């Protein structure tokens, strides 16, 4: 009896967690007029998706999001790796520098967005994807450095010493030994950076123009223009989540391993 209660409770929990996303998926595949029907699947259509691409430029926004997210990660990762390595191995900057890195992560985004806008306008990069890539790189840099620091700390210094007696320079030891060994960490950090950039809303809203919007901004626009078109919004949400789901299926193992933060065995 007690066991039955437990299982029932677990099933309920699973339902509570899984039902909302599944309902979003269902609504995205139902014509707008039947969205609020209580039937499980009153009719099937891909019209919501087609509309998004045909009328709402979702193709462009999708591409924008990918360019911005991938670009910012590729730009930030080398800096993050070298900073994280310096923090992990040397006294560089001491405790204070490490704290500063964390501290920048504490500033309220709202307080940063206006200066960012001012700077980008100064160099003529508002409404451009390049501007967003640069800003996102800057936003992700401290966090990525911190994660990679943890990773590099987990790599025994013996490995580098071995490489250095084996004939490499200190830089060669980093390049040939430390980097390859920390690939899971770099991948995990990269994926995290991608996700953060992909989901970012505030900076994208302020810094992008009508043709350079990213998915979150486009989603928000759907929700506010002339009432909420729930079918389209649902389709947009599904599309927004899709790359995350696909990516994460491949690298689930990788991330979990990478995010145990520095425990390379």
């Amino acid at each position, binding site marked *: 009896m007690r066991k039955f209660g437990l299982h029932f409770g677990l099933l309920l929990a699973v339902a509570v967690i899984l039902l909302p996303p599944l309902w979003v998926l269902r609504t995205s595949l139902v014509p707008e007029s039947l969205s609020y029907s209580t039937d499980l699947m009153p009719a099937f259509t891909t019209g919501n998706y087609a509309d998004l691409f045909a009328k709402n430029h979702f193709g462009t926004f999708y591409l924008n999001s990918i360019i911005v997210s991938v670009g910012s990660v590729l730009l930030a990762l080398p800096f993050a790796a070298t900073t994280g390595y310096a923090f992990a191995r040397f006294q560089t900057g001491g405790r204070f520098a490490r704290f500063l890195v964390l501290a920048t992560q504490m500033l309220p985004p709202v307080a940063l967005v206006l200066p960012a806008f001012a700077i980008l306008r100064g160099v003529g990069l508002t409404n451009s994807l390049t501007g967003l890539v640069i800003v996102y790189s800057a936003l992700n840099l401290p966090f990525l450095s911190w994660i990679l620091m943890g990773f590099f700390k987990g790599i025994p210094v013996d490995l580098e*010493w071995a490489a250095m007696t084996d*004939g490499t320079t200190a830089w060669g030891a980093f390049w040939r030994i430390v980097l390859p060994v920390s690939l899971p960490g770099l991948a995990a950090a990269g994926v995290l950076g991608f996700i953060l950039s992909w989901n970012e809303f505030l900076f994208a809203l302020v810094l992008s123009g009508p043709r350079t919007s990213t998915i979150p901004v486009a989603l928000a626009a759907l929700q506010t223009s002339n009432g909420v078109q729930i079918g389209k919004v649902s389709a947009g949400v599904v599309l927004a989540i899709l790359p995350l789901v696909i990516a994460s299926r491949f690298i689930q193992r990788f991330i979990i391993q990478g995010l145990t933060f520095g425990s*390379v065995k």
Partner: protein
Amino acid sequence: MASIELSRVSKLYANGIVGVRDVDLRIEDGEFIIFLGPSGCGKSTLLRTIAGLEGISSGEVRIAGQLVNNVAPRDRNIAVVFQSYALYPHMTVWQNMAFGIKMRGAAAAEIETKVQEAVELLGLTGLLDRKPGALSGGQRQRVALGRAIVRDPQAFLLDEPLSNLDAQLRAEMRLELVKLHRRLGRTTVHVTHDQVEAMTMGDRICIMREGRLIQAGAPLEVYANPADTFVAKFLASPPMNLIAGELVEAGGGALSVKACDEIFPVPDMHRAAYAGYAGKPVIFGVRSEDFYESPQEPHYHPVTVKVVAIEALGPENILIGQLGQTRPIEIAARLTRHFRAAIGSSVTLYVDARPMHLFDVETTKVIARPPLPVTRIAP
């Protein structure tokens, strides 16, 4: 093929901790030398300064006569085997072993030959495509050795290479390392905290403590003539029995050590050396194996010991007993496996005082006496 010279080498860390202090040492070409000491004594630090992995604060390091203070590790042409083995986890065994000569720009054919030689020497055939993660501890140890050998370096520096192996494998590898050294003839520095490794592997032991080099010499010579009480205790298990007492004159120029309600006659051969200390407090040192169950030689001196415990190891028995009545101290005696006695009973043991040592109470340094003859084990 190189001697290693250390002249007044010191290493101070930024936080004020002293790693190594004023070490002077000349390691001859082809010598197998042991750095022995408890953890934190600076032995690994000293090894790393030779390798160039840690800079030194003052002094000079020379390899093959050449000053290398400012020479990068990769240009010193030495190989290090680390305690953790430090195998590159993303490379196969073959790649691990080839990495060093590849870095030095060797041709593919030469790499193949050299790696193959090392593989055969160490019995690693069949493991070449594995990653280090798929190897046992003993295999990893061999690969680490192999990686060092392939490079054909001027000297091998081994940092506690056996400490992660289990007892049986450790004993085997001990022997194999010695054979390897005999075969390759390269200068080898072996760092260890294990007294058995120190006694059995090297041409010379260097005993370190708190960053200082306390004593250097052939194992049996150091064993027979420890420089101070630290060495006397550290280089044996059970450690040398150290008994606080007084050196007294016993008439006719003879000397005795009065300690623990016992009078230990000083052998005549040491009389001259110790005469100056008559009437002073001393520490009387006698090794556990210099106690015997029977008076096999006429000069053995009988003492009465109360049995505290008997550790029957199988091949021999260690007796832990109390010496003296008023302020008894605990001593260890290494007896044959045939020795039997009840706990709490009193037994008579016979001390061979000839290998004895006296130590100064204040400095804990040995009071010099002519060494007993030590036969060196050939060759």
